[in-house]
């Protein structure tokens, strides 16, 4: 029995190739069903995200599985095998297990600590469960990997710090306002940058969005796309009285908001704090405004500084995460060992017990004159022989299993003793 992973990721293949191999969520079930029918794969799981396509499998015939999976992938996605064959990586045994643990914990992701991958792996697992394509080996692997990933998220800071300008802005906004439920976000400028940043700001839901732009039509368009409302540009000062966050990204060549304006504004707001995000270049808001109490102003450089400062943190937390993952990998490997080794030991013992019983019965039948105590001595001897004979092989088998050739020992033992066919 072998575990293997075959696939490609952002590390080995560009997006043009990855997107061709993408398998939509709805089709996962049927593709999986085809993967396990008439195939050397006993168990199978498919993970297909925008950054990776991977097949996790359990098979008794490793070579056959390694040959088959790329072919099936090519067929299912109508992509010529030669196009991506050299982009594939193949991992087996311990390496495959480690990879399976690293992926949902975001340690193999483009952005360390990203939170999407955990949900994606969970969905892939559930699709595989529904298609009944997995069995005990992958089920336990996935469940432990998912719970380890959760542990990594809660026990390390890996997911905490922001890695993009908009997420840095959100993090700062939360420092000021707590969560963003019920907050009002005013967006000045309806360009691409505004849209990207605004989308992230409202992503958590619960906040209302107002868009304004010199060109009112553009403002309306953007507002519709983001489910907010649009206002005319000359009305922005009114809206600023009640907005909590103001995102500025207009093409104005001069300051739209000067320090004096903001001083007046904060006074009119009776000092209710306001968070100004100025991602325009040249800047829309006079940087001196940051000196005003209860006004928090961050420009594009400030936000990028936040992101940079956190990159080092994430790397450090990733090291800690790797340690947690390693412990979990060891635990799983031990479980797997018990799965393989224990049945063999049990079967061996059963075989020896059968022999013992038979011989014991025959011997005692020839010695009818023995007293009960004397019979007991014979019985005890037979048990002791079996136990002592078994002790060394059992211990050695368990010890060897952890090593590369461990499975070999199991197979040899089964063959030598004529236990059921090789696993």
């Amino acid at each position, binding site marked *: 029995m072998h575990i293997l992973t075959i696939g490609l990721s952002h590390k080995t293949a560009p997006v043009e190739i990855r997107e061709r191999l993408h398998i939509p969520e709805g089709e996962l079930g049927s593709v999986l069903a085809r993967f396990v029918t008439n195939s050397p794969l006993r168990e199978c799981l498919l993970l297909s995200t925008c950054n990776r396509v991977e097949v996790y499998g359990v098979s008794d015939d490793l070579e056959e599985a390694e040959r088959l999976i790329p072919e099936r992938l090519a067929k299912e996605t109508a992509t010529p095998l030669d196009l991506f064959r050299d982009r594939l990586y193949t991992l087996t045994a311990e390496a495959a297990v480690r990879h399976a643990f690293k992926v949902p914990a975001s340690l193999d992701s483009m952005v360390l600590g990203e939170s999407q991958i955990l949900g994606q792996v969970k969905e892939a697992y559930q699709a595989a469960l529904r298609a009944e394509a997995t069995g005990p080996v992958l089920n336990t692997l996935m469940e432990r990997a998912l719970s380890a990933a959760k542990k990594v998220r809660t026990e390390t800071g890996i997911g905490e710090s922001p890695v993009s300008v908009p997420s840095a802005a959100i993090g700062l906004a939360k420092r*000021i*306002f*707590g969560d963003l439920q019920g907050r009002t976000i005013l967006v000045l400028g309806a360009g691409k940058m505004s849209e990207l940043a605004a989308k992230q700001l409202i992503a958590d839901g619960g906040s209302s969005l107002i868009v304004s732009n010199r060109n009112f039509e553009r403002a309306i368009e953007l507002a519709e796309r983001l489910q907010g409302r649009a206002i005319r540009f000359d009305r922005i000062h009114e809206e600023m009285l009640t907005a909590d966050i103001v995102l500025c990204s207009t093409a104005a060549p001069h300051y739209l908001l000067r320090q004096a304006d903001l001083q007046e504004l904060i006074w009119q707001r009776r000092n209710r*704090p306001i968070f100004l995000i100025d991602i325009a270049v040249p800047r829309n808001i006079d940087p001196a405004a940051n000196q005003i109490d*209860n006004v928090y102003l961050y420009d594009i450089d400030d936000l990028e500084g936040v992101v940079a400062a956190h990159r080092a*943190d994430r790397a450090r937390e990733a090291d800690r995460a790797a340690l947690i993952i390693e412990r979990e990998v060891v635990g799983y490997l031990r479980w797997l060992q018990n799965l393989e080794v224990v049945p063999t030991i049990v079967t061996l013992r059963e075989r020896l017990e059968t022999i013992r019983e038979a011989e014991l019965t025959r011997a005692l039948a020839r010695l009818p004159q023995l007293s009960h105590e004397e019979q007991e001595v014979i019985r005890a001897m037979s048990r002791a022989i079996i136990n002592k004979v078994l002790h060394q092989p059992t211990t050695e088998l368990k010890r060897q299993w952890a090593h590369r050739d461990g499975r070999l020992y199991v197979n040899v033992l089964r063959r030598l003793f004529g236990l059921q066919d090789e696993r």
Partner: protein
Amino acid sequence: MDLVFFYAALILYLGGTGGYLVLLFVQRAHISAFATASTLGGLSLHTVAILARLYLTGRPPLATVYEALSFFAWATALVYLFLEFRFQKKLMGSFVLPIVLLFTFIAAVVPKEGVGPDRVPGAWIWLHVGLVFLGTAAFALTFCVGLMYLIQERLLKSKRLSPVLFRLPALEFLDRLAYKTLAIGFPLLTAGLIVGAVQAHARWGSYFSSWDPTQVLSVITWLIYAMLLQARLTAGWRGRKAAILSIIGFGALVMTVLGVNVMSRGLTAFH
């Protein structure tokens, strides 16, 4: 006998303080659980100590320096644990527990006995001391919250980002909490001072004596907090200025309270 429990509480508070301070830098579930458990344990033992004192002396334990400070520390710890339970913002503990610890420690080193029971005044004195110290406990929290606010505000404004910034509660939360504790502490302090003034009138013939440093300080402190409350409500003074003022106010309050005992010549001293 009650002192055994008190000292044990002090040790547990020490553990709790240590736990919360470590939590500022390192976030682990078991450190967090330890800090809370240690503080809770300390509070329980402290409660026992106070009740034991009550039983032993047959009167509310608010008559001596030791008793008053102990009560203050107890009330502060109690309110803090309630807030922690309600809001789960454990980092507040890093600020509040040192104060609890400090005053428990001071209480531990001052003489435990006041003058004997023959000098025990009427029940009004307990009310005065009790109310004032309950108010002070609330203001201790306003102080801590104000301190946390200032730290975070400075970090945000200067754009210097340390991990601590991301662990402190949000500014709005701190500001609202500061207001709530202020709104609780102020009536308590006011009531306590009124009781004190009435008592002063009953015993010495005048509501207020400008020769008594304690009374003067009390009034100054009260005025600071009154100003703070007023400014918040009407002029929309919030955030930084309010935080600074609440820190000054608490400073004045502490001076008043400690001064009461140092300046034993004053009328209202514990004697």
